[in-house]
């Protein structure tokens, strides 16, 4: 499958994300001839252990469940500190519910519009807590359709990002998109791109968003 980079918006020091930035970013996409195609939505859910005696040092503090639009019948479970990513059918969410060992806590939706730009597909999205309009972050997926190898596509992805940065620079926005590539090898993933790579990138973006919020408080 085509590879993609998932980037997150890093606000400049002293600034926060707001919906005006989304509007500006959308205008940047349109200024470089991106054609609007439709809506997309991914969801990350935090699962936390349910402990009978309130003590459980040996269990992970939480794990992430991720639903991606590119694989609507699949679901991804990630224990990030242990570098485990599991791909399962969506029915795994029903199994987790029946087991009653971990409970769904917070869910965050990543949603917005998709754009076609030659061989690239861009998805810009707001990060919103479930059933809330309280903007927590902005993400952008950059997908390069002709190539599946992460390494082979690296140069063209970097070139695209250079063009993108120049387009953004003109608008003097209070921040920029950051690409932090996780070490996929640690998760047992290879150079050929899969949806598990996407899930791992979303988990990394999630960690960055939390770090940004905590850094501000």
């Amino acid at each position, binding site marked *: 499958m085509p590879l993609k980079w998932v980037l997150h918006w890093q606000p400049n020091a002293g600034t926060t994300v707001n919906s005006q930035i989304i509007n500006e970013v959308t205008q940047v996409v349109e200024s470089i001839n991106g054609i609007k195609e439709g809506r997309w939505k991914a969801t990350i859910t935090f699962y936390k*252990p*349910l*402990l*009978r*005696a309130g*003590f*459980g040092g*040996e*269990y*992970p503090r939480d*794990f992430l469940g991720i639903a991606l639009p590119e694989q609507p019948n699949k679901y991804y*479970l990630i*224990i990030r500190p*242990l570098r*485990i*990513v*599991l*791909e*399962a*059918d*969506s*029915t*795994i969410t*029903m*199994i987790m519910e*029946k*087991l*009653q*060992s*971990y409970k769904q806590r917070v869910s965050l939706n990543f949603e917005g519009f998709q754009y076609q730009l030659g061989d690239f597909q861009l998805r810009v999205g707001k990060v919103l807590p479930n059933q809330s309009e309280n903007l927590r972050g902005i993400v952008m997926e950059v997908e390069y359709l002709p190539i599946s190898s992460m390494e082979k596509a690296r140069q063209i992805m970097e070139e695209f990002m250079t063009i993108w940065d120049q387009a953004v620079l003109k608008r003097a926005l209070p921040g920029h998109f950051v690409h932090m590539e996780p070490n996929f090898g640690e998760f*047992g993933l290879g150079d050929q791109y899969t949806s*598990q790579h996407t899930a791992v990138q979303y988990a990394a973006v999630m960690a960055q968003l939390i770090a940004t919020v905590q850094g501000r408080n």
Partner: protein
Amino acid sequence: MECVVQGIIETQHVEALEILLQGLCGVRREPLKVHEICLKSGPNLGAVPSEVRLICNLEQTEPTWTVRFVGGAMRGAGAEQLSVLVRTVIESKASKNVLRLFYALGYKLDHELLRVGFAFHFQRGTQMTVTVSSVNKMPQLHNTDEAVPVTPGIQLVEVTAPASSETYTEVASAVSSFCEYLAPLLHLSKPGISTGVVPTAAAAAASLMSDGGGTTL
């Protein structure tokens, strides 16, 4: 949800059962070799203690994994009157690191089994599966090559059919009718209610073997 009945048969009569099933189902048998790992939740984990099965299909070139949750049997006067057990079953295919994930979540190995035999998948009033397998235990952890039968000379027969809360009475009735055809060779009942081998098995098997299943029992 599924409807299920189980029974046992002596290994010496399995060939006769296969001939009978072949005639009844009108489809070819499929080989069956699955490694089943039963996990239980660790101390204090979960609102209630829980159990989950990881099933590795060893028949395929690349083994595939399924997470299987089996819920409690349906209760009530209606369920009591049925000759089959109706229970919740949820399955999800998963990537091969699923055992590592469940260990990381705090699940512990309870026991593991290797089932070797064959299965028939067919339509007869409803979608049904019959499995005939020897159940083996492993003296060494995960070592399926050195598995030994739990009950030498005896094989487990299981008839299952997917159902829903709307259809289970019809499905149960279709399963019961099908079981009647097998009655001369083995008795099928709700799991946990062992009825042993049937006295007519040897004669029925001899009859089937002599004419290849052409005689109506």
